[in-house]
């Protein structure tokens, strides 16, 4: 789960990480008042869960409260890479002498938390990692001992810091590490961490990604989830216990298992089609879950054919087949369906589908080829543009696009 900047900064302030004074505004009047209180020179930052906000025009400098008002008016209600901007952060401008990078990340191959520091802050750290990897110092904390003092000393020295500044930097490093564990992060960055002309540190931006697996034990963090950051259909999918991600193609997929769901998308692409979604119904899905999953994937008006791909282990093929037949009988299926059923109760499943309009396939390859061909035929046979029927909708309110989601996190 990504958190908004204004949430992350409040959390990190609680750990003693210094930030410039700022306020959050939902109206341009509020933004003007905050700017006046902060002395006029401010930066107005759109609060949207996307990366590269600066380049996308989501961060504006203002020299006066009136300019801050105009900047907020331009940003509020706009959308940044498809994400709606409901709030802006109005932060005091601090005179900067140098920008540093400080971050902590879950290091999968070391199976540890790795801290990184660099004197080349303020820019995309992944770009620095590519072009000048030596400019980033890294230390991996022992999971059982925690971050050692000498490691914070190494990081400060590598960033070229000495004396009081090194001491302050090390204390921020320890705070970041503590916050990383206590907030169950998978990524926590302060970038840039500015050294002001007065010789103090100030975090000018921060990024916090929280492990979804830990949200159940971190209710205060779970409460920060922005419902607008995901498609309503994806929220509905989570509610019914399936995993769904909307994509841009026209072949809908209903699959058991995350790996098989990805492989199904890939094989659709391999035979010239485009998957409309990722959908994993999980292991041992009940008939109601499969019905709900079908409704969720069919709400997408772009879907021209559905590929049901089941390798039954705990999942029973007959349950999935019955759900498909019931959905067709209820008039919920407006496009051709191809089914490939293997594993537990596959013969029963195929028997249920025999004599119906569902097209049976023996292998994944055959199933994908048939689904891609049927999707193309259905698309050619209907008027241009999305089909008018079948768009169920799950919730009111604006939706963000998957294309915009792709940009996030950069």
């Amino acid at each position, binding site marked *: 789960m990504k958190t908004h900047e204004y949430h992350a900064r409040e959390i990190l302030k609680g750990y003693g990480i210094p930030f410039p004074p700022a306020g959050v505004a939902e109206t341009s009047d509020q933004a003007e008042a905050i700017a006046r209180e902060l002395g006029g020179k401010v930066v107005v930052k759109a609060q949207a869960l996307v990366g590269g906000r600066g380049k996308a025009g989501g961060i504006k400098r203002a020299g006066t409260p009136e300019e801050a008002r105009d900047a907020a008016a331009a940003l509020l209600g706009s959308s940044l890479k498809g994400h709606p901007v409901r709030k802006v952060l109005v932060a005091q401008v601090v005179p900067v002498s140098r920008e540093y990078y400080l971050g902590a990340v*879950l290091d*999968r*191959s070391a*199976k*540890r*938390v790795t801290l990184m520091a660099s004197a080349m802050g303020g820019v995309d750290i*992944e770009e620095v990692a590519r072009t000048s990897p030596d400019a980033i110092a890294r230390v991996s904390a*022992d*999971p*059982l001992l925690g971050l050692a003092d000498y490691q914070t000393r190494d990081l400060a020295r590598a960033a070229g810091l000495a004396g009081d500044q090194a001491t302050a930097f090390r204390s921020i490093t320890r705070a970041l590490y503590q916050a*990383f*564990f206590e907030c*169950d*992060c*998978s*990524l926590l960055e302060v970038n840039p961490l500015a050294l002001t002309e007065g010789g103090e540190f100030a975090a000018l931006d921060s990024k916090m990604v929280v*492990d*979804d*697996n*830990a949200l*159940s*034990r971190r209710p205060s963090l779970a409460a920060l989830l922005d419902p607008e950051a995901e498609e309503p259909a994806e929220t509905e999918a989570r509610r019914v216990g399936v*995993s769904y*991600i909307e*994509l841009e193609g026209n072949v809908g997929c209903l*699959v*058991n*298992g*995350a*790996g*098989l*769901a*990805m*492989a199904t*998308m*890939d*094989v*659709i*692409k*391999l035979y010239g089609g485009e*998957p409309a979604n*990722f959908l*994993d119904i999980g*292991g041992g899905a009940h008939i109601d879950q499969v019905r709900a999953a079908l409704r969720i994937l069919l709400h997408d008006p772009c879907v021209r054919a559905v590929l049901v791909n089941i*390798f*039954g*282990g*705990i999942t029973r093929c007959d349950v999935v087949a019955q759900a498909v037949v019931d959905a067709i009988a209820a008039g919920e299926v407006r496009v051709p369906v191809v089914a490939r059923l*293997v*594993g*537990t109760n596959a013969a029963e499943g195929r028997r249920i589908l025999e004599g119906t309009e569902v097209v049976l396939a023996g*292998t*994944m*390859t055959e199933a994908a080829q048939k689904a891609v061909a049927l999707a193309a035929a259905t698309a050619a046979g209907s008027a241009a543009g999305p089909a008018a029927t079948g768009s169920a909708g799950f919730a009111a309110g604006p939706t963000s696009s*998957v294309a915009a*989601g*792709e940009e*996030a*996190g*950069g």
Partner: protein
Amino acid sequence: MSILVGANTRVLVQNITGDEGRFHTRQMLAYGTKVVAGNAPGHGGQEVEGVPVFESVREAVEATGANATVGFVPARFAGDAIVEAADNLVPLIVCITEWIPVLDMVRIGAHVRSKGCRLVGPNCPGIMTPGCCKMGILPGNIFTPGPVGIVSRSGTLTYEIAGALTDLGVGQSTCVGIGGDPIIGTTFIDILALFEEDPQTEAIALIGEIGGSDEEEAAAFIATRVKKPVVAFIAGKTAPPDRRMGHAGAIVSGGRGTAAEKIAALERAGVTVCNSTDETAEAVAALVGKRNTGDRN
């Protein structure tokens, strides 16, 4: 021969009295697995499917000589179950559970290694040595004994490849689901090293997916340390970046962990990388057929 589990594996089932524990104990026993003990606090002295239940792992191990454990424990308690198994020096610990907080696995994984135990998972289907020992939730009927070792981050894709191989008349030595989480106890490299040493295994199918760099590390290992032929499939070529594709570990972040990077690394190491699971099974089957012919000549 096989790797990790075989005829001498004596299995303890943690949380054996839960619905999943009961169901899969029955399935494992039906397959012929030696399930010798169960563990569930508050249920000591009971039996599940004829298997004695103990209050603690310590009592279970002392009474039955269990040398491997598989846990069907809810995410909130699964980490503790792993620690209990490691503290009692159970050499092989298989964790099926999904949704364990990742930072817990950072600490627990380190603890397990410090005890000299091996953890497989979490978020995995388990381990299968066909015709001999099934430890986990894998459907027994699709496997058959033979020369192919399978290692995979995905449960269903393990079944997909094993089922296709069985249909082609090619059996498997051992199939290991290493799990779909970002931090797992046993990685591709660990299993590749075991397959390389295993006399029964003639060829290896490696099933990876987007996210992390385990496949790249496997490629580097294969290039220098694995002489047996390896065929690979990487799922998630069409997955959008920054989206968790079901598995917690299946995410392209910061432009890293893409299928393209992994495929390129594996191909550089001389691995045949296939475009679909069907092709993968066919490529492995062809390889084993050829090797068998070669061996006879």
